[in-house]
Structure formats: C-alpha cells, structure tokens
C-alpha cells in the first residue's frame, strides 16, 4: 500500500475536522439570520452527531478483526452497540434530558442531592472513560504503524498528544457539525471501498467464506457464557458512556431526545451492516491474520490485497482517513467528557486553564495504560468499558429515574459493589493474573452477567434498609423527569 496517499488522507481528515470545527463556529450571523442561528439542534442532525462520536475504532476496525478471527458469533458486538440505544431510549433518554444534567455526576447530584454520590460517580466516569480510551489509542497506534511502519508506542504517544493539543486548544470541541461530518465520513470510508471489494470478490469467482477451522483464542471455553456477558454489557452499558450522555444535553427537550435516539439507532444500524463484509472478506484474503498478528488491521489491508494498484491505494487511503476520523471523534469526545468531570470534581477552581490541565490528566492515564498493557483486541477492551458502565451507571440511571425509594447510601453501595467488582474483574483480566481456560477467567473477562445484578440488588436492598435517607426533592425530581414539555413550560411555540 502506498503510504503517501494514506498519510495524505489522514492529514486531510485532521485538517478538515479542525476546519469544520473552526468555521462552523465562526460564521458570523446578522440579526436577520437570527432564527437560523438560534434554531436548536434538530433530532436528525443531533443523531448523526451522536453516531459520529459513538462509532469508535472498535466499530471501524475492531469488529471486522474479531469476525475474521472468531467467526460470525462476534457479530453480537455491533448488535449490542446498537441495541444499547434501544435500552437507553426506553428507560433513560427523555427523563435524562429533562433532568437538565450535562454529565452523569450532574444527574447523580440532582437526583440524590448528595455530593458524595456525585464524587463517586465522577470516579466511575473517569474509570469508564479511561477504559474506553485505551483501545482508541492502541487502535490509532496500530493504524499509524501499518501506515508508516512506526513502532507501536510512537503512534500511541503521537496521537494522544494530537488529541490533547486539539482538545485543549478548543479546536476539537464536541461541535455538532464536526461530529455530523465525522459520521458521514466514516460511513463513506467503509461503504465505498466495500462496494469495490465486493465487486472484486465477484470477479474472483465469489469464493465461499468458511469458518470451519475456527480458531478461538480465549473463547474456547464457555462461549455461550461469553456471549451472554457481551450482550448484557453492551445492551445496558451504552446509557452510561460519558461522551454519549453529554450529547443528549444538546437536544432541546425530552421529546426530541427520544426522536434523536431512534434516528441514532437507524444510523448506526446502517453503519454496522458494513464491518461484517470486511470480516468475511478478510477471512478469505488476509488469512494470516487469524494466526497471530493484528487482526484489527484487516480493514486497512484489504483494499491493497483485493483491488491493488492505484485504485487500491486510493481506497486504502479513504479507509485510513475514516479510521482516523473514528479514532479522533471518539477519543476527543471521551477526553472532553473525562476532562470536564476532572475540572468540576477534582481540581479546586474552575476556568479555562484548569480545563487544559484536566485534558492532559484525562489523556495521561489511558496513554500509560495503552503503553503498559499488552494489546487486547480493540473490541474486547471496549467491551470491558461497557461492562463497568453497565454495572454502575445502568442501575443508577434506571433506578434513579423510575424508583422513588432510591437513597444515596443505596446508590453508593450499588456503584461500589456492582461497578467496583466489574472494574476489578476487568483490571485482573487485563493484568493477566488469571489466564484461560477455566471458569475464573470467563467470569472475570465478562463480568456483566453477574455484576449488573449485583449492582441492582445492592442499590435496591441498601436503599430499602435506609428509608430515612430518601432525598427531600425526590418527588420534584420525578415530576421534572417525566412531565411532558407541554405541561412544564407554561407556554409553547
């Protein structure tokens, strides 16, 4: 593959992202255009922005790699990533928007009126955000390695600094238009090459894809349990991802938040039709990746293998650009969210300078993690972030929104027991202390099956045991969460 084209594509994506962000804000508007300027973000636009921020390196590179190695069972990942939005829609979307919370700690404080719970939630937000950032950095490092042949660590460091500088300088704020642009870029970057790849495959005589000699690196024992662990984590974890929650604030009201979520479902559903194509073709044309090597690279390598020539180079460059867009949008969104939490709840005073400091802090930890920890497949480590989110934030959000008897001690117990145990399991798995095969490893690698019930149970039981601690404003909060806009605003437009 020609490196020049790919590097040019990556540079173009970075530049375009910064430019769209810069100009989207700086277009001056006169009063006559005020109604255009002040129009709140429509559900479809916001949905594209959410999708743009959500589709990460795990979606762009990881799924195809996993499918290539482990076969179609891995398609539970994209289904789970999508279905997570359905669960978010039916339990959380509208009430969360109506709560007026910008971040999860905001929600916890507003609902439970406790600084203590707020701080604990902040810790978990940072933890989940970091877990999610590690694979983004590793994915980006891998991309750079394949594109330029640079050593892996250099890619991680380089890319982490790019994001820190961009976020801290304000060039990569979670501006709606930038993220919308990112979504369409990612879709195009997978769709167009996919069409050419499928055509090339037909020219090749449409050989059948077989998964008979499935290699299962650590899925051989208890695959059914792993599947359920994956389902629970992704279905229930989406609602707690910090960069997802922040985006709902942009919806003008709860009703639009719901409609936005449906549009997100459709948009990411369309996107997820593509990675399996790459996985299947990779099985045929990059079989060496099954046995060791970075399977995540399959998407990047395929155009060169199948199409070749200048066409292959250009398609490869397009994919590289898309992969970089995936990495940039998710990483900057996550860094923003984590840095926001650090600024508000860790650093003493607020202000722009502190936000910059927080950005560096937000990136340092996952960078260290990505350098020290051995490479786990991108999609798998993202799955761990989902497991932590599902065991801590899902009980907090669902019970906080629908159950009046939730108390601060209950929330703390649930967060610590559910989220804490999930986090510990993930940490033990990543550290490699418990190795496959065997139940201990399976239980620790896919903790959601047991840690989510633990989180819910702890929250409910401790809350029931501390009825005196029900926050005074519970009824007011419930009314605010659930009352339709037509009745709260007192006037309508």
């Amino acid at each position, binding site marked *: 593959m020609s490196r020049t084209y790919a590097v040019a594509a990556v540079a173009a994506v970075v530049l375009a992202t910064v430019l769209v962000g810069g100009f989207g804000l700086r277009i001056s508007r006169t009063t006559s255009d005020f109604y255009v300027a002040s129009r709140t973000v429509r559900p479809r636009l916001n949905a594209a922005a959410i999708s743009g921020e959500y589709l990460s390196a795990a979606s762009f590179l990881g799924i195809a790699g996993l499918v290539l190695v482990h076969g179609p069972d891995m398609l539970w990942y994209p289904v789970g990533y999508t*279905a997570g939005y359905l669960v978010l829609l*039916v339990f959380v979307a509208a009430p969360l928007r109506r709560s007026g919370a910008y971040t999860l700690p905001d929600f916890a404080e507003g609902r439970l009126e406790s600084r203590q719970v707020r701080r604990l939630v902040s810790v978990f937000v940072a933890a989940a955000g970091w877990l999610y950032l590690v694979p983004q950095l590793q994915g980006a490092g891998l991309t750079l390695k394949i594109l330029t042949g640079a050593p892996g660590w250099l890619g991680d460091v380089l890319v982490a600094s790019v994001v820190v500088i961009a976020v801290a300088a304000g060039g990569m704020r979670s501006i709606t238009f930038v993220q919308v642009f990112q979504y369409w870029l990612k879709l195009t970057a997978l769709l167009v090459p996919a069409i050419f790849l499928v055509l090339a495959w037909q020219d090749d005589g449409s050989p059948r894809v077989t998964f008979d000699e499935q290699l299962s690196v650590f899925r051989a024992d208890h695959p059914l349990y792993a599947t359920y662990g994956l389902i629970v984590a992704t279905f229930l974890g989406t609602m707690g991802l910090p960069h997802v929650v922040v985006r709902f604030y942009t919806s003008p009201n709860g009703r639009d938040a719901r409609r936005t979520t449906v549009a997100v479902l459709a948009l990411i559903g369309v996107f997820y039709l593509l990675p399996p194509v790459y996985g299947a073709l990779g099985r045929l044309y990059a079989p060496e990746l099954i046995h060791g090597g970075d399977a995540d690279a399959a998407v990047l390598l395929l155009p060169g293998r199948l199409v070749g020539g200048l066409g292959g180079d250009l398609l490869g460059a397009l994919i590289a650009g898309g992969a970089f867009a995936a990495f940039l949008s998710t990483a900057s969104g996550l860094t923003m969210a984590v840095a926001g939490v650090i600024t508000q709840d860790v650093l003493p005073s607020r202000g722009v300078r502190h936000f910059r400091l927080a950005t560096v802090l937000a990136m340092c930890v996952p960078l260290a993690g990505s350098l020290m920890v051995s490479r786990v497949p991108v999609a798998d480590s993202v799955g761990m972030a989902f497991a932590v989110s599902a065991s801590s934030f899902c009980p907090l959000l669902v019970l906080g929104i629908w159950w009046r008897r939730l108390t601060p001690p209950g929330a703390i117990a649930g967060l610590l027991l559910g989220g804490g145990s999930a986090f510990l399991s993930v940490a033990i798995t990543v550290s490699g202390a418990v190795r496959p095969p065997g139940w201990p490893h399976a239980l620790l690698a896919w903790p959601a099956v047991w840690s989510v019930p633990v989180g819910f149970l702890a929250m409910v039981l401790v809350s029931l045991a501390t009825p005196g601690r029900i926050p005074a404003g519970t009824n007011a909060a419930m009314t605010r969460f659930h009352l339709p806009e037509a009745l709260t605003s007192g006037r309508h437009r």
Partner: protein
Amino acid sequence: MRPLPRYRTQSEIDEQTALGGAYVRSLMRSQLRAGLTAFTVLAVVVGTLPLVFEALHSAALVWAVLGFAAYPPLTLIAWWYVRRAERNERDFARLVEGRPAP
C-alpha cells in the same frame, strides 16, 4: 404563542400535592409499562437467540440474523416505543388540562 392558561390540576402537580403526585405516578406507570414492554420483547428475543444458534449450529443463520436482520426490528421497536410514549404524554396532558378526547 399564546400562554397556556394555568389549569387547576396543573397547579396540583406544580405544587406537588398528594393529588399532583398521584397524577405524576400514573404517568410514570404508563411510561414504564411502555418501556418494559419494549424491553421485554427485546430481552426475550435476544435471550433465546444464542441458544437457538447453539442448537442449530448454522453459521449462515448467524450471519443472516446478526449481520442484517437484527437492525430493522431494533429500529421498529424503538419507533413503536416513541409513538407509544408520545401518545401517553398527549393523553396525560389532556387528562390534566381536562379537555375531552377528540
């Protein structure tokens, strides 16, 4: 942009009286029912699918279901839920404002 007149029940809700609380709780129950219905459909289907795949042992089926067929139903359930939730809210607003059903 005429201001909505403040209705009696509305002020019960605003002031969080016992009666207002009853109204809000009934709204929450109807919304929770809608959410749980959607979630149950999802959980039952998704919960049994791995077992079905395990029993049939057909890679083609897994490809077809997880690669393509899963997404339209997800969007359809979401669409149904949004319609149901918005209807609940309209009904509730009508109940509070004391307007007869059209």
